[in-house]
């Protein structure tokens, strides 16, 4: 209709509405379509802990942010260009984030007195002009529109109104020139057998698209070209799904049976759900009576020769602490996954945080070291989970894998790996006595210090393990002082030996300079984006992202001293920072924001510029 196309590099959009408005689903559909179109993308779902807070309340606002780009991007964006606000509460909560001059699309049918009061508005922002100086306001009567579109369908009014999120989706598809067919076929699959629901949603989406096309609401449409990503076959993936796939790949490559002992907890439960559906892969999942049974059943399975996993979030790790000591003492392979969330206590169950690092490193009684690895992106959860399994089995030790709510629920396009190309993963169970006709369950491998893995059912290797200190080699109960010291040292040494098995540190940028941004875990994307921006602006800034936090890579100390400043952005009060300062005696500084959401790249750029003066 004579509208101009403007090609842009990237856009950030945010859908916000009531918990019942289907914002996560709408965001998910826009994400899938955007992935198919070939943009790089990154998402940030943001939903309340309550399943259904009172309709129209500020607490009940659910949002989904998505950044998509023709370039390689690393974050879901800081500030949205476009906000879709399905009700006044959504506007109230999210309007302050929209970039100056950005677009706000409102469902004005929801801007009625009751909802306005609920959100704390004295007058209607859709009508009073209060936002007009700052944003492009696009008011749409979405309820009315979907009612008209579905007029002749034999569907009750409530169900018709539920399609308004698809109307909004249609508007955005028009605005950013996305095809509708993928969503149409998705609707057919999702609601198979419910033809009227399929029809209503399809009509609502098309109505939104056509409405945007025929009205004069938009003067410009936007084109975001395909991103030039490395060649390969891509799919969209979120962190929890990638973690599940990584575990399964490890089981297949090692030939071990996968066992998961787990207790439901946000935001980790999806891993339990996903693995439970994979029975035809021989996966055994056990929903335990509590967190402790989750980990102890996994320890029992590990003793019996399974690739044993337990999944949880921070509070669950607290409950599992004693059992992790048992896994360390019995030197059994176990992968413990902490999908971190806001803490302490119940904290912010649906929000992200990096505040369980100290817990992962130190949260057990006694000298109880275990390797700790952290995933950096949703897709990286696959590789981190695989590597955690490989190290656990090779070194006969529990391994903690840290992901977080942002990685778990966020998604990105992912270059699908070839399972055959993953690092080999061999397992050898002990079959014969290893000490002059005797079997010593704690006779260590010279290289790794791992003990043999002898599983029940193996004749002649009957032995006992337990949480009491064991004698070197024989594994008998021992209270001998010298032996205890030696075993404490050996368990630490064994973890240190993992250093020989992990990748060298990569420096993004020059090997020396004015400032190094040092990150771990889910802040990878924001740090990388910030450093790219800084480098483009001619700053001598580099980025190092640490994957293994215990043990730290051998070469890290050498790298750190090449920089005049070190900045460690973290979503905690400086847990990694203190480790780095104590380990390497460098004067690193922290950037610490603990708001339950990712640190924005712009915030990091600002902090670096401030440091550099």
């Amino acid at each position, binding site marked *: 209709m004579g509208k101009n196309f403007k090609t842009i590099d990237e856009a950030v959009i945010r859908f916000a509405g009531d918990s019942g408005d289907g914002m996560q689903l709408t965001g998910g559909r826009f994400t899938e379509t955007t992935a198919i179109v070939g943009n790089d993308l990154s998402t940030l779902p943001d939903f309340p802990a309550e399943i259904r807070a009172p309709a129209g309340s500020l607490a009940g606002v659910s949002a989904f942010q998505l950044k998509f780009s023709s370039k390689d991007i690393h974050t879901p964006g800081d500030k949205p260009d476009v906000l879709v606000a399905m009700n006044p509460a959504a506007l109230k909560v999210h309007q302050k984030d929209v970039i100056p001059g950005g677009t706000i699309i409102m469902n004005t049918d929801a801007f009625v007195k009751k909802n306005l009061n609920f959100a704390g508005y004295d007058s209607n922002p859709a009508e009073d002009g209060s936002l007009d100086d700052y944003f492009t306001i696009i008011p749409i009567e979405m309820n009315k529109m979907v009612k008209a579109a579905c007029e002749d369908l034999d569907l009750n009014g409530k169900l018709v109104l539920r399609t308004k999120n698809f109307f909004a989706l249609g508007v955005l598809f028009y605005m950013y020139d996305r095809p509708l067919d993928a969503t149409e076929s998705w609707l057919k699959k999702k609601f198979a057998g419910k033809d009227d629901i399929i029809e209503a949603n399809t009509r609502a989406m098309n109505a939104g698209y056509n409405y945007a096309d025929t009205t004069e609401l938009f003067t410009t449409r936007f084109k975001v070209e395909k991103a030039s990503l490395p060649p390969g076959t891509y799919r969209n993936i979120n962190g929890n799904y990638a973690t599940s796939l990584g575990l399964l*790949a490890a089981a297949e490559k090692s030939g071990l049976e996968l066992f998961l002992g787990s207790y439901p907890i946000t935001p980790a439960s999806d891993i339990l759900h996903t693995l439970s559906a994979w029975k035809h892969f021989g996966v055994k999942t056990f929903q335990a009576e509590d967190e402790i049974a989750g980990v*102890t059943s996994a*320890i029992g399975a590990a003793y019996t020769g399974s690739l044993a996993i337990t999944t949880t979030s921070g509070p669950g790790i607290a409950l599992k602490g004693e059992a992790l000591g048992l896994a360390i003492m019995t030197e059994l392979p176990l992968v413990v996954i902490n999908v971190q969330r806001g803490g302490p206590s119940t904290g912010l169950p649906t929000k992200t945080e990096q505040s369980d690092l100290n817990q992962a490193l130190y949260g057990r009684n006694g000298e109880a070291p275990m390797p700790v690895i952290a995933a950096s992106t949703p897709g990286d959860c696959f590789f981190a989970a695989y590597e955690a399994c490989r190290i656990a089995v090779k070194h006969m030790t529990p391994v903690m894998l840290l992901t977080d709510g942002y990685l778990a629920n966020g998604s990105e396009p992912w270059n699908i790996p070839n399972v055959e190309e993953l690092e080999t993963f061999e397992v050898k169970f002990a079959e014969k006595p290893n000490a002059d006709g005797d079997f010593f369950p704690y006779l260590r491998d010279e290289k790794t210090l791992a003990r043999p893995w002898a599983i029940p059912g193996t004749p002649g290797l009957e032995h006992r393990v337990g949480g009491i200190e064991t004698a070197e080699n024989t594994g008998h109960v021992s209270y001998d002082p010298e032996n205890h010291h030696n075993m404490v040292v050996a368990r630490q040494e064994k973890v240190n030996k993992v250093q020989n098995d992990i990748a060298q540190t990569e420096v993004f940028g020059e090997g020396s300079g004015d400032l190094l941004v040092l990150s771990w875990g889910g802040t990878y994307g924001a740090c990388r984006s910030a450093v790219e921006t800084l480098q483009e602006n001619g700053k001598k800034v580099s980025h190092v992202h640490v994957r293994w936090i215990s043990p730290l890579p051998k070469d890290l100390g050498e790298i750190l001293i090449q920089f005049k400043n070190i900045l460690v952005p973290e979503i905690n009060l400086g847990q990694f920072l203190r480790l780095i300062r104590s380990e390497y005696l460098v004067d690193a500084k922290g950037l610490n924001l603990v708001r339950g959401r990712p640190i924005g790249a712009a915030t990091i750029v600002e902090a670096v510029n401030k440091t550099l003066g």
Partner: protein
Amino acid sequence: MSETQTTQLTKKDFVSDQSVRWCPGCGDYAILAQAQKQMPTFGRKKEDIVFVSGIGCSSRFPYYMDTYGFHSIHGRAPAVATGVKIANPELSVWVVTGDGDGLSIGGNHFMHALRRNMDLNVLLFNNRIYGLTKGQYSPTSEVGKVTKATPYGSIDIPLNPPSLALGAQATFVARTIDRWQKHLAEMMDRAYNHDGGSFIEIYQNCNIFNDGAFEEYTGSQKLDNVIELKNGQPMLFAKETKGLKLEGAKAVVVDMEKHSLDEILVHDETNLELAQIISNWTSNPDLPEPIGVIYSIDKPTYNQDMVDQIKHAKDKKGSGKVQDLLNAGDTWKVS
């Protein structure tokens, strides 16, 4: 209950090289000896037997059995054993626990392992005291018990293990006594041959911290206030001079000189209501203490159902390949 042993093992084969460190005179010795004696009779290879325990005096048990063994942490043995059994359902898995370990700190795991009918044999050594921590009252200690932690007497109401097990949907519930060697052996045999979760409460004496724990029932002579339950048999005790009869749901003791046998309650192991009535006779001064198999029925086991579900899924969908899952869904090519 799969493979049988070709060469006959003896008790000696099940004695480990570790010296036993219970207090002299402890009831645990008798239970250990009986277990070592009983194992060869099952005809199982000893590498297919796993003993799992928690923490407490009884939980040292696995160290003394020359089988696979796991001395885990306080209260968690049923959960560790659950992982063992799921990982390899062919193993014969035994849980050794005590009244503190199994019913207090580990009460949750105890209850859920039984509810799932996980094929574990749970031996609960009940001595009504915390022995390893040197004498505090336990969840089965009687009201008024004076211990270091209760100098004015315990005000806790003790729980009744068989009632708890029945409430948790256990499919095999029995009680025996450390000194009743033959009976103990018989109960272990019944537990082993029960396909599903088996629970045996063993009245056990702690001669250091709670000597005479169950003295009123466990004298070397079978006492008149104990009834040995036998499936299909009338409930007679005190050398058959007394019998039990139901009045509604309430049992009353009758003199057999004045009553005929056909008035007497007949034990039926498969009757849950009856099992609940019997288990409630525990510690009732007006009724004999019930010993023997209180309840035993067959129900599908968790471990077998999991095997079946996996087989069914594989039959239906074919064994999965990770690469297919990776490539599934909406994908696109970048060249």
